[in-house]
């Protein structure tokens, strides 16, 4: 059947592919390793409490408190969700339940395009069009929590919509048909039967949208103002964990650089937690 040559070739191929497959794990390990190597020592030197709960970020003078930035990152994420989740869920419901073939043809590619636009373009358009409007009509400098939430809310739309859509589409047709057969209107079917059935997938889409918002850097740097205080209102400027790293990385050395890596460690942990919660939520639905 197979010649000995072919057999050894098969073994070689198998081995190579196995090595390739574990490369992802290897890279993940490498990333964690280096970020931790560079970031952990500061936790020991300055103390976890000082870093995570400290209010003062002045790395060239020995202060590495990133608490305001942790809070700001959370606030921006919540803001982005407040804008992106309802809009995204609505679009997903429309796409899954109401759109005809025509609508689908327009909507799906549009979503992919929205996802493909570079984040720096979003940030730039935010600076040119949203910042002045907020400054004129609402006050503040225009670089604010509100602006950032608006921009991020739009940016997470593709994520929320596509995953919610998948979740909605995976609800069996019989559910819908049963509900309609009992005399419910389409909307009643949607909001009492379909959406609750798909709720773990929808929840997962929100969590992944949060992950996307927390991790966004370029657009945030351009519209958030980057002030080091916890914003006292939606019109105040703020600095997220991601902006902190990107703003100062190029200039930093020594302890300052370590501080940025420590910021990276905290960011990584937050994002990993969000991702695992999302995956857990999805898996629970599958097991159901």
């Amino acid at each position: 059947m197979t010649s000995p040559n072919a057999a050894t070739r098969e073994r070689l191929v198998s081995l190579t592919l196995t090595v390739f497959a574990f490369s992802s794990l290897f890279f993940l390990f490498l990333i964690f390793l280096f970020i931790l190597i560079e970031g952990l020592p500061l936790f020991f030197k300055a103390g976890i409490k000082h870093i995570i709960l400290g209010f003062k970020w002045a790395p060239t003078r020995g202060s590495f408190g990133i608490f305001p930035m942790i809070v700001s990152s959370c606030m921006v994420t919540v803001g982005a969700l407040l804008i992106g989740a309802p809009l995204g869920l609505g679009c997903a419901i429309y796409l899954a339940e109401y759109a005809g073939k025509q609508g689908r043809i327009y909507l799906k590619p549009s979503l992919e395009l929205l996802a493909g636009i570079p984040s720096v373009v979003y940030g730039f358009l935010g600076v040119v069009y949203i910042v002045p409007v907020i400054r004129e009509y609402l006050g503040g400098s225009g670089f604010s929590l509100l602006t950032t939430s608006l921009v991020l809310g739009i940016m997470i739309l593709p994520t929320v919509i596509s995953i919610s859509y998948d979740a909605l589409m995976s609800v069996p047709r019989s559910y819908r048909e049963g509900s309609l057969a009992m005399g419910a209107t389409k909307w009643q079917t949607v909001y009492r039967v379909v959406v609750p059935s798909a709720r773990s997938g929808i929840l997962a889409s929100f969590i992944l949208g949060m992950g996307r918002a927390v991790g966004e850097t370029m657009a945030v740097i351009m519209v958030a103002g980057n002030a080091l205080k916890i914003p006292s209102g939606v019109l105040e400027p703020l600095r997220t964990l991601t902006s902190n790293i990107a703003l100062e990385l190029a200039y930093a050395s020594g302890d300052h650089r370590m501080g940025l890596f420590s910021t990276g460690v905290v960011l990584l942990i937050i994002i990993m937690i969000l991702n695992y919660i999302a995956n857990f939520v999805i898996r629970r639905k599958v097991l159901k």
Partner: protein
Amino acid sequence: MACCRAILLAGIALIMSACPGGSNHTAVQESFTVNIAGSTSVMPFSEKLAEHFMLEHPTFAINVQAGGSTAGVQACISHTVDIGMCSRELKADEKVLTAIPICYDGIAIVVNPRNPVTSLALSQVRAIFNGSIKNWSELGWIDRRIDAVSREEGSGTRGAFEELVMGTDTIDDATMVQDSNGSVREVVATDPYAIGYLSLGIVDARVTAVAIDNVKPSPVTIHEKQYKIVRPFLYLTLGTPSEAAQLFINYVLSDDGQSILLKEGLIPAYDFS
């Protein structure tokens, strides 16, 4: 399978041709490379000088990178670059490098052209940036909060500003931060209620430089030592620079190079004693 192999070979060929050592210069002379990195304040001017220099010396390739004054110092110490750019004085532990002032630059305090406040005392500037003065009404304008913009920690411009203006005070946490002179200028140019500091060399019609203690910043007032917020632009080298780097440095310090810098609004090195 055959086409896969072809693609692989093409890819390898591409990489090999792109690898360092691939010479595509037809001239008999070798090509010289000078790597420069450091302060973002100095960078645009180094770029300009490099552009002109390479017109007259086409076999030279001068790579100018940003990274910040501190990064420029580090890169120079670790010999990663030929020349480091720095927009502040060297600290004691950095003195192992040779610092060559190529020009001097004023730090201008700028406001939006719509802002009627065009003169401030140094103490007022300090108070604005440390958060004591929060409203334009305290300075004679409308009742509106001051949107102060600063540079990020580690920036040479910020370091010079802190040293020359803030003194022992620290910049308030509530000030906004932008990571380059250009973006500070952008914010001040578009926000009528903003105030910021940046390199005098990049002040243009879109922002107004404020007079400090009744002295308006300009190459003349700096030369006359009236405008005091001045910092040197330094080229740093470790020991003796390479021949190519030395040629470029000589060009920068020559009349040609200095006149280019003068045209950009900087103060030539020889003007300062």
